């Protein structure tokens, strides 16, 4: 019963936040503090709820006795609790950040923004806890509408309203598939409560699998269903971008986990193979497209596509292992996926907050116009660096820990698939994940260096100021989480194995054994990987100590300042390496995929002696060109064709009705 009170308190906090934001919309300062403060409290209560479930076991209570669709209940098992915790942690940080960030929106519909933000957070929390088909769809749609309105918040801008429109269309295609997936489950179970849902037999089960993959995949942003994501995430206010990119797309992972772990049961191997294929495509292409971006928020959005791919590599591995009857390894793979869910939520929202802090002071999202900010914003720079190292999957931060688990899961694929298939799949997927990591590292070298290092490239950048303490505190909190989860992942992995164990029949904790408090290892025939992030940190510290000791004991400490040697010219910011130049080799190496179209514009005269030359590269987005553009063109053409039927002549319309009536009569009498 305690959980009921926690849940009610959480929901009331968000409801109060909405009400106060709307009621006090004429007094933005008060509304800002009150609404976002209450949102932060609500998020913390969600976190408390998650902790409660993990300590006291699964919880649940009935919301209503009987509706048209049967009784609606809230159920929080470990899976729900895990996502509750993820949303709570990021939501709390983002809400505190929002208090400072939203000051920019005073007089720009702050009231509605804050109310929608609270509704958005609450709807996500309901999505992961409600245990009824119709209630889930309603909560899901509320989440969609709230986020749509937040994306469209700056609707004066053409780009924002277009992004919101694309998001609205795509996400509803997704919702249609999700509804289809649920509707396939309802007839065999005869109930709409999650606990009763059963998989249909035969090909309908495969259809349910595919509908769930497409439906939730649209929200998650897997390629080629990702088109809305790089438009919508940057268009929203930054704290909303952080929540959308860090957490909202994870509700889709929750949906998939519910379907693939609970409702559908163990499937054929091709389910796993299909998920792995989509995952590999998303991770590699997502990071490649990210590398080509210069708009920092768009770039981060593309990295979400990449990280969803990495998460789904773990999920796909889990499906393959489950169908091969290896619950232990399936648990390992699912645990890797869920661990990356949490890690990505943390470092992606951290990076968005850092980008927002930069955006707020410099008013530009184009990294080609930034530079040197490490001097003016030392804390933001340090926290952003932590996020950059984490998202690149480098030790000792959390990104490495979950990618390492994913590596181990993929490496064990030959145990599930005998012969050459398994070996080749393992080899190709492991090396693709390695490629993804290397590309992400290249991308974040570019991002961090262009924003924070060298000399400012514009007056805006030179006038930058450090963000306020209310923005720095949540960033610091998230950066600290990156370090803690990276160095000591063992306790969290214990929770994760408990989360997935009930679905897989066997306790995967036996496989994912923490040898010591500081090490992570497995006890399974197929794989014997062991990793110790803590020992790694000790080694790194020892190495650094050796370097420092060498400095002290040997040689002179002399340090002279002098400008960089540039052939006798005093260097200035225009001589610095640009983001375009930095990513050029990779753009060329992957030109078969990216299809870059360079374009040089010279002003005043000759091609080589113009007064000013501008170099642009346009990337071709293959999926937009191949799928979406033809589809939209076809729809418009069809509409034009259909328009011919609509002449405006009433006689003709009556004729249509006559014709249809006669046809129906003829058909119904069957001659």
């Amino acid at each position, binding site marked *: 019963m305690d959980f009921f009170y926690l849940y009610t308190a959480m929901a009331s906090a968000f409801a109060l936040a909405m009400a106060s934001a709307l009621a006090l919309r004429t007094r933005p300062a008060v509304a800002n503090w009150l609404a976002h403060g209450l949102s932060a409290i609500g998020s913390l209560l969600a976190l408390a709820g998650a902790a409660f479930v993990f300590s006291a076991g699964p919880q649940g209570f009935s919301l209503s006795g009987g509706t048209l669709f049967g009784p609606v209940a809230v159920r929080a098992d470990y899976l729900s609790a895990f996502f509750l915790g993820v949303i709570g942690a990021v939501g709390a940080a983002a809400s505190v950040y929002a208090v400072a960030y939203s000051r920019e929106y005073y007089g720009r519909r702050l009231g509605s923004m804050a109310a929608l933000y609270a509704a958005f957070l609450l709807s996500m929390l309901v999505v992961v806890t409600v245990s009824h088909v119709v209630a889930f769809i309603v909560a899901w749609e509320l989440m969609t509408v709230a986020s749509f309105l937040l994306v469209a918040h700056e609707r004066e801008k053409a780009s924002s309203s277009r992004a919101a429109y694309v998001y609205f269309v795509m996400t509803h295609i997704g919702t249609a598939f999700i509804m289809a997936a649920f509707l396939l489950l309802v007839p065999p179970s005869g109930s709409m409560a999650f606990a009763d849902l059963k998989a249909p037999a035969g090909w309908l089960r495969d259809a349910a699998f595919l509908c769930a993959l497409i439906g939730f995949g649209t929200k998650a942003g897997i390629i080629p269903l990702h088109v809305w994501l790089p438009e919508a995430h940057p268009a929203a206010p930054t704290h909303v971008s952080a929540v959308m990119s860090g957490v909202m797309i994870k509700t889709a992972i929750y949906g998939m986990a519910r379907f693939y772990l609970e409702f559908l049961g163990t499937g054929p191997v091709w389910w796993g193979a299909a998920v792995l294929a989509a995952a590999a495509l998303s991770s590699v292409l997502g990071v490649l497209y990210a590398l080509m971006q210069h708009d920092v928020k768009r770039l981060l959005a593309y990295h979400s596509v990449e990280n969803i791919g990495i998460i789904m590599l773990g999920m796909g591995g889990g499906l393959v292992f489950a169908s091969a009857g290896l619950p232990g390894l399936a648990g390992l793979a699912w645990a890797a996926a869920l661990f990356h869910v949490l890690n990505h939520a943390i470092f992606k929202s951290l990076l968005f907050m850092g980008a927002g802090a930069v955006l707020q002071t410099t008013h530009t999202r184009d990294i080609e116009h930034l530079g*040197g900010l490490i001097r003016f914003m030392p804390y933001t720079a340090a926290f952003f660096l932590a996020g950059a190292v984490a998202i690149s999957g480098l030790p000792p931060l959390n990104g490495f820990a979950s990618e390492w688990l994913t590596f181990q899961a993929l490496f064990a694929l030959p145990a599930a698939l005998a012969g050459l298939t398994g070996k080749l799949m393992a080899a190709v997927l492991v090396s693709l994940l390695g*490629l993804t990591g290397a590309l992400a590292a290249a991308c974040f070298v570019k991002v961090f260096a262009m924003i924070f*290092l060298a000399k400012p490239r514009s007056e805006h950048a030179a006038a930058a100021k450090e963000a306020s303490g209310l923005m720095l505190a949540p960033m610091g909190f998230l950066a600290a989480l990156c370090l803690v989860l990276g160095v000591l992942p063992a306790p969290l992995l214990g929770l994760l194995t408990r989360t997935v164990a009930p679905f897989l029949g066997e306790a995967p904790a036996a496989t994912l054994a923490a040898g010591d408090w500081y090490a992570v290892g497995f006890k399974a025939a197929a794989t014997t990987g062991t990793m110790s992030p803590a020992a790694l940190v*000790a080694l*790194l510290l020892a190495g650094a100590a050796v370097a420092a000791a060498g400095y002290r004991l040997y040689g002179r400490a002399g340090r002279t300042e002098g400008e960089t040697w540039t052939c006798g010219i005093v260097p200035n*910011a225009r001589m610095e390496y640009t983001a375009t130049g930095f990513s050029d*080799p990779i753009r060329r190496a992957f030109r078969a995929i990216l299809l870059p179209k360079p374009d040089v514009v010279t002003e005043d005269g000759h091609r080589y002696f113009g007064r000013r030359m501008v170099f642009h590269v346009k990337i071709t987005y293959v999926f937009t060109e191949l799928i979406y553009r033809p589809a939209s063109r076809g729809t418009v053409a069809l509409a034009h064709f259909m328009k011919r039927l609509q002449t405006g002549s009433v006689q003709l319309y009556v004729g249509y009705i006559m014709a249809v009536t006669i046809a129906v009569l003829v058909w119904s009498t069957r001659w």
Partner: protein
Amino acid sequence: MMQLVAGLAQAALVAALAPLVAGLIKTAKARLQSRRGPGILQPYYDLAKFLGKDSVVSPTTSWLFAVAPSVYFAAALGAAALSPVLAPLASGLGMGLADLFMLLYLFALGRFFLALASLDAGSSFGGMGGSREMFIAVLAEPAILLALLAVALPAKSTGLTAMAASAAGAKWALSEVFAAGAFFIVLLAETGRIPVDNPDTHLELTMVHEGMILEYSGRPLGLIHWAVAIKQLVMITLFAVFFLPGAPFSWPPLAQAAVLAVKVAATALALAAAETATNKMRLFRVPAFMTVSGVLALLALVAR
């Protein structure tokens, strides 16, 4: 704790011997090119000199520029602690934690920070070096994983000790030759050797690694050079342990150490020979070169 101490001891050993191997390669290369060349101990003298000198630092740089050499060095030392040098001698000697992905990602960590530092001073030379280094890393990372998976998959473990044990007991067959070829190509790229990079110069348009560290001088430069030598020795050791026919674990430790030393020296000489026999290739032909490595590694997997 025992494991940590053993790892540190191994790191110290590798760090102490790394300049010697670098000197061996330099001398051998000079002889192959009919030059007298420096003595084999020259890298030690160079290090001593670099570490005793003042450094000149651009006022544009931030704390990152100052920290990066230490991170790079620490990552190289950490990798040296994890690498399977002593594994054949005593499998319990701290190598239980050594994992393939940890080793490779430590190198990636060092590279990340050095590439950041290359862009910190704001000169285009450094940026060019950093951009190219990350580019080559992007190409080499999948290739190196594929090549090492050819060893790890039969061993059914990514633990470096288990891989070394499996490789030491493996029969020398066609698939081993393919795998060795695949890793040797990656070795050339990762140690910055001639078809991919030129370790001896930075004042030409082919510069990669040396361009990246152009801004450094004095003690930080010495530290970076040392770390590069350590990384080189670790990579050579990986090649010698995993891909060259060797002594089974049952042999006495001293004999194994001698065999390993011979294998490392032979690999170093092979690197010098490869560098003498080839030309620097255009940067944009490197992808094809790395593809050759990847295909060889896949063939090794199929042939097994």
